[in-house]
């Protein structure tokens, strides 16, 4: 229990630091405090100055961040500068969209990757190995943006684009790990003793490769979230990725800080979850 509390405290510290870093980054970025409307030739000097003042009110980062944290404790996440709407409302609308997209993409990506890697390793036929390598390389070589466009064109579900971004990375790691595990001496002994391929996979290979595979699980969440930005932007999906891109372009300080905090929480939860699971696996192994 004490360990869990310690982990949660560390997680909270990282989340707070992430938010502060993000806020500082936005504040220092060129274009902070500017507004597209400044170029509107109908506006007179007073109106342009008013726009400047309105956008520049968060220039003092420590003050902004302190107020943000105090408000956040009360459940108020502030208001988006570019969309003129409460951030909490925006997140509530868009989070389920991205969660569904990324969740389905991760599931499909992992399923394909693990099945193909296991298949290629178990068959040990050069043709299968070559085919698996080529399929992995093909999707590793296609930018997420191009994948997204292809899926738009084919009217295919966008989560498959995420799956194809996750798939080659997971496949590559999994295949290497499995290959390494199969070359271990105790497996040779198991083979010599006549153990079946499935038994070897379940009892000897997966426990060895499991720890590192779980480390990849955490990273694959980050990869999928990263891919969500171009996929959502290009497929016209109103999720967190599209929101992040809009916030970045508009130097929307409250929105970007909240999004960074959210992504930090998800990343940490995924990484630490996989870490705990890995430790648990190691403990059982021991």
């Amino acid at each position: 229990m004490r360990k869990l509390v310690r982990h949660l405290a560390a997680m909270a510290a990282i989340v707070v630091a992430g938010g502060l870093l993000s806020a500082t980054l936005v504040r220092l970025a060129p274009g902070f405090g500017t507004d597209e409307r400044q170029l509107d030739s109908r506006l007179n000097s007073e109106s342009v100055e008013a726009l400047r003042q309105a956008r520049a009110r968060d220039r003092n980062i420590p003050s902004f961040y302190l107020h943000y944290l105090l408000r956040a404790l009360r459940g108020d996440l502030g208001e988006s500068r570019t969309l003129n709407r409460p951030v909490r409302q925006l997140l509530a609308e868009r989070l389920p969209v991205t969660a569904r997209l990324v969740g389905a993409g991760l599931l499909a990506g992992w399923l394909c990757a693990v099945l193909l890697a296991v298949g290629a390793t178990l068959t040990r036929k050069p043709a299968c190995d070559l085919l698996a390598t080529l399929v992995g390389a093909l999707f590793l070589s296609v930018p997420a943006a191009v994948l997204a466009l292809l899926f738009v064109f084919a009217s295919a579900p966008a989560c498959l684009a995420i799956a194809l971004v996750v798939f080659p990375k997971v496949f590559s790691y999994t295949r290497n790990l499995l290959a390494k595990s199969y070359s271990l001496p105790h497996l040779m002994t198991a083979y010599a003793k006549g153990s079946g391929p499935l038994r070897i996979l379940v009892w000897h290979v997966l426990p060895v490769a499991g720890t590192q595979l779980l480390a990849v699980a955490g990273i694959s969440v980050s990869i999928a979230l990263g891919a969500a930005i171009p996929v959502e932007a290009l497929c016209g999906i109103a999720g967190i990725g599209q929101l992040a891109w809009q916030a970045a372009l508009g130097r929307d300080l409250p929105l970007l800080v909240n999004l960074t905090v959210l992504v930090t929480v998800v990343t940490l939860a995924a990484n630490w979850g996989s870490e705990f699971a890995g430790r648990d696996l190691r403990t059982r192994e021991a």
Partner: protein
Amino acid sequence: MKRRPLALLAFLLLVLSAAVGQSGGELRFYLHSEPKTFDPLLVADDASETIRYLTGGVLVRVNRRTQQAEPELAASWTISRDGRSITFNLRERVYYSDGTPFSAEDVAYTVQRLMDPALHSPTGDSFRSGSGVVRTRVDSPARITITFPAPVAGIDKLFDQVAIVSSRSANKERAVLGPFYVADYKPDSYVLLKRNPNYWRRDATGRQLPYLDAVRLGIQPNRDIEMMNFRRGEIDLINWLDSEYFDRLAGLAPEVVHDAGPGLESEQMWFNQFPNAPIPAYKREWFRSTHFRRAISGAINRADLARVVYGGHAQPAAGPVSPANKFWFNAKLRTPAYDPAGALSLLQQAGFRLEGTSLRDREGHAVEFSIITNAGNKARERMATMIQQDLGKIGITVHVVTLDFASLIDRITESYNYEGALLGTANTDLDPNAQMNMWLSSAENHQWNPRQKSPETAWEAEIDRLMKEQASSLEPAKRKACFDRVQEIVVEQQPFSYLVNKNALSAVATTVANASPVVLRPQTYWNAETLSVRVQTASKH
């Protein structure tokens, strides 16, 4: 007797055309961003402008085809001799979409709110010609006089942008006088407009307008998806088409594309002449030299820009006003001729010399500068790359830098840390008064050298004088003469090098009846109240 079959035929045609025109239906098209506001007085972005145009009732409407002011909620109006007052005689028995009656009180309320300095409304700022209070006098429920502190030139046409807000309705955004009202809004997804049951206008046969039952405005920032869904018949029109897509679509379905000719939009390039800009002093000296600016302008092949970048759907530009602006365009101006030899000769007169393949100034500095433009705008990136090659021919090295829009605005309006810039102007207003904040040397948007305490050059002083003179004059001919001269000075001095005027390209499905795209915004649905959608089933293009 011979006339009877003809009359019968004419009657049948009339009935048929009326049936076609009145079939209603739902018109579907996309907004490219979330509307920033539903308050018609605060509109500044395209999405909100679309909603204001379709829902807002105005006193005067500029006919998008004839470009003339026409009576709308005001049956007639008179402008006082001193140009400070305008009196509107309003239509009677007009009701808001929520049933509340429309009267002069609503106009007074709208104008007072619009002119509130604290509101900072772009539409309101267009009316500000002098300091002081705007007064409204309600003579009767159907008559109102609005008095401005100083004369406002072209005052009647300015009311085209002012949607009259209800002074009495509880939900002011739902109470409108236009053909449609906002029935539903799902953020990030769509805005649904429904037919205003109380809309005052009727067609020639006496039937109440609009014909359409609804307008569904999807929110879709991606132009590729817009194009794809248009081809699949999921949307009915694209208000603005990229020339590349226009040509592709024209190849597949020529009947749906429309090239209305040069629009009001222009693309221009300028150099930073701001005295405190953090750029080398010798470069500022180049940029402040008229010979240098004219030489650069002459070395750019505008015909190639129009042909290669826009596939011929653009015209080389001469000056700040597009030929689409029928009244204000100065037809005497000629597009700067592409003449690299002439450009070199001009540069030599200004003390530059060509050493091998590199152009150098009097002090031996190689002529090299950067042009910034906004990232993601393919046409501008391509134009900048072509200008890079054109200027390379006269020994000038150009670096093309694409920046995200916020960084770009920061450089051109705050830090002034840039050398050359390539951007466009989307003119929504025909009258030069809307550009006062661009041409006056003291203005914020006097891009090449903003916020001057007093004009730094004689020609800028001349532009200031002419712009103020046209703004205070009520004689169209005199105003036109002043603004013609402004255009001539701009072409002579090249503070902005105007490059091309893009054509107004659009696509309208054949199922949409009565569509007649024009060059002024909104090109395709300017006559929304008379549009109708014949068949609701998807058809492919």
